[in-house]
């Protein structure tokens, strides 16, 4: 079993006729994902990558009974697109778009919470359950099916870690990017508990970064609720104080949110924190297959 998505997931693509929407729709279909419709206002009746396009999510929903939506629309329209999906009855929304204003996301979260819709992102590479379903922009081929759940605030750093795992023959149950923005959908803790309850998952990798307090909250939660082993890496130990590092989340203010504070909190919660980003896979390998030969040493 995977979490949140599997081979039965039927998804629509919002912003399917844009460059990125079209490119990744094709890649997701190639991966085996069931993309049942696209949405771009004004393009109803056209097709994109052989997928029928509708003007509105409610029309696409009525025609296909989709269960998920992945969003590629530009940042000015993305908050609206998330709400449209939720209002139409979509229960899982993945928003790839980055650069959505923070105050818009605060409203979106309240809107979604009222409707009971789950959001992944925004500013996320998406979610993948290897060999079952890919709703995201990650390179599918680096993933293998297996026992490790991966949850991350970062995009490309996740690919790096997944690549390490797969190279070592360790597959993933599901990999989820929670996105780097200050206000988003599912948090580390929301996902850790799902992995804890997922029979396929035997261990988890958590990839954090400086800024905010998501890692500290995850640490507190792990100490209390998570029994399966967790390996973590926190990026940004060498980032200078008070400088913006690309994610709005990555601002160090005062003493809180520093890499060392996060690392200390995670370590205290029993998490194996890795120093080098190149050693995350090997560390997880040692934990999950302690007797296997030929492993790199972290």
């Amino acid at each position: 079993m995977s979490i949140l998505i599997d081979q039965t997931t039927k998804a629509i693509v919002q912003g399917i006729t844009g460059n990125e929407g079209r490119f990744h729709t094709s890649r997701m279909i190639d991966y085996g994902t069931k993309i049942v419709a696209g949405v771009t206002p004004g393009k109803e009746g056209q097709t994109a990558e052989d997928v029928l396009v509708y003007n509105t999510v409610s029309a696409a929903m009525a025609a296909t009974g989709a269960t998920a939506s992945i969003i590629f629309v530009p940042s000015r329209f993305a908050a609206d697109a998330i709400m449209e999906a939720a209002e139409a009855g979509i229960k899982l929304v993945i928003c790839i778009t980055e650069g959505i204003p923070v105050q818009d996301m605060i409203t979106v979260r309240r809107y979604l919470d009222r409707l009971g819709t789950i959001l992944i992102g925004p500013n996320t590479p998406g979610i993948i359950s290897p060999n079952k379903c890919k709703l995201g922009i990650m390179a599918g081929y680096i993933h293998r099916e297996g026992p490790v759940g991966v949850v991350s605030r970062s995009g490309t750093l996740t690919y790096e870690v997944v690549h390490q795992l797969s190279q070592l023959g360790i597959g993933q149950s599901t990999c989820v990017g929670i996105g780097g923005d200050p206000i988003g959908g599912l948090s580390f803790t929301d996902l850790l508990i799902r992995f804890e309850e997922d029979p396929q998952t035997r261990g988890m990798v958590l990839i954090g970064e400086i800024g905010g307090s998501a890692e500290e909250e995850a640490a507190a939660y792990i100490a209390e609720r998570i029994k399966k082993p967790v390996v973590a890496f926190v990026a940004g130990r060498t980032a200078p104080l008070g400088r913006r590092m690309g994610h709005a989340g990555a601002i160090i203010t005062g003493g809180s949110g520093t890499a060392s504070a996060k690392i200390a909190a995670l370590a205290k919660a029993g998490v194996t924190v890795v120093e080098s980003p190149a050693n995350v896979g090997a560390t997880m390998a040692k934990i999950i297959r302690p007797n296997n030969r030929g492993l790199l040493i972290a």
Partner: protein
Amino acid sequence: MKIHEYQAKEIFASVGIPVPRGEVAATPQEAQRIAETLGSPVMVKAQVHAGGRGKAGGIRRAETPKQVNEAAKDILAKPLVTHQTGPGGKRVNRVLVEKTVNIANELYIGLAIDRKRRSSAIMVSSRGGVEIEEIARQDPEAIFTEWIDPTIGLPVFQAYRLANYLGLDQAQTRKVSSLIQALYRLFAGKDCSLVEINPLVIERSGEVVALDAKVDFDDNALFRHPEIAALQDESEVSPLELKAKAFNLNYIKLDGNVGCLVNGAGLAMATMDLIELVGASPANFLDVGGGADETMIENAFCILLSDPAVEAVFINIFGGILRCDALAQGIVRAAETVTIDLPVVIRLEGTNVKEGRKVLRRSSFHFSSATDMQQAAALVAAAVEGRRA
């Protein structure tokens, strides 16, 4: 986006928040003239995007117009070094000349986004005029916070409750309550990420006035506030950072010698961490972003190379939206236009990686190739060592 104190105060004045009378000056003569109009004594305040100006000598009291001239001469056109600027400091191009006020009481008001509660938060303290983070650590009880549901807005009762906490008299409480409502309208209406008044002063006359003003904006929302975007002072940004921004690149100049070009902020930070782990030091943070195209990569590479401190280049790309072939095209195009006499280590993985590697192989461009980060970092460290030796 940050703006200067004098700009923040102009915004305050436009929404009815009282600020001291004052004007901004670019020369000592101008500063003196302003003081002559306002009447002495005045404060002369360096306008740079950095905290800690007072301790660094960037805020001076002047009793006469002549003293104003001297203070401005001391401050203007020189770098101001505070705990936030780094050792190089920041050059001061303008001073704010402001009438002094008779302080009876110094308060603190701040508005920010609370990520954990997914709300705006308004904080007040009756212990303003000092390092508020220090207060927050030592005596959390001294700060009172209200969280605002953005779908409701700020109800008057919450503004009043904040003001009421400060222990002022009834007329002052009413004034501060109105001021908090005006601040929240500004914060929500202009997509601010931070609004801070420290100190908010109760004058001996009973008037309320914002003695300092700090307003930061959400970069992602500037598209709907062109009048705010126009306030950006480009002299506050390093020329390379400015150039990068024009190309939609996220670049920050650092002190090391290894130029990095990475896609994604997390991988970029991890790459910097790794460079330090192998004993070298990053010359910059450069995230080309998830959606970079050939031209952006080309521009990014050129910016890297134009930094004289760079002794080696580390390109670390794991393709998602950014396809490896596009990256490779961009690098090859850059290599065709600029002379590259530095060691370049490229580590490429992800979407269209085969096509990307092919593009690089077919070009005349010389570089070292690595298949994993660890190997790449080792190659970079060796290259730096090699050039030093």
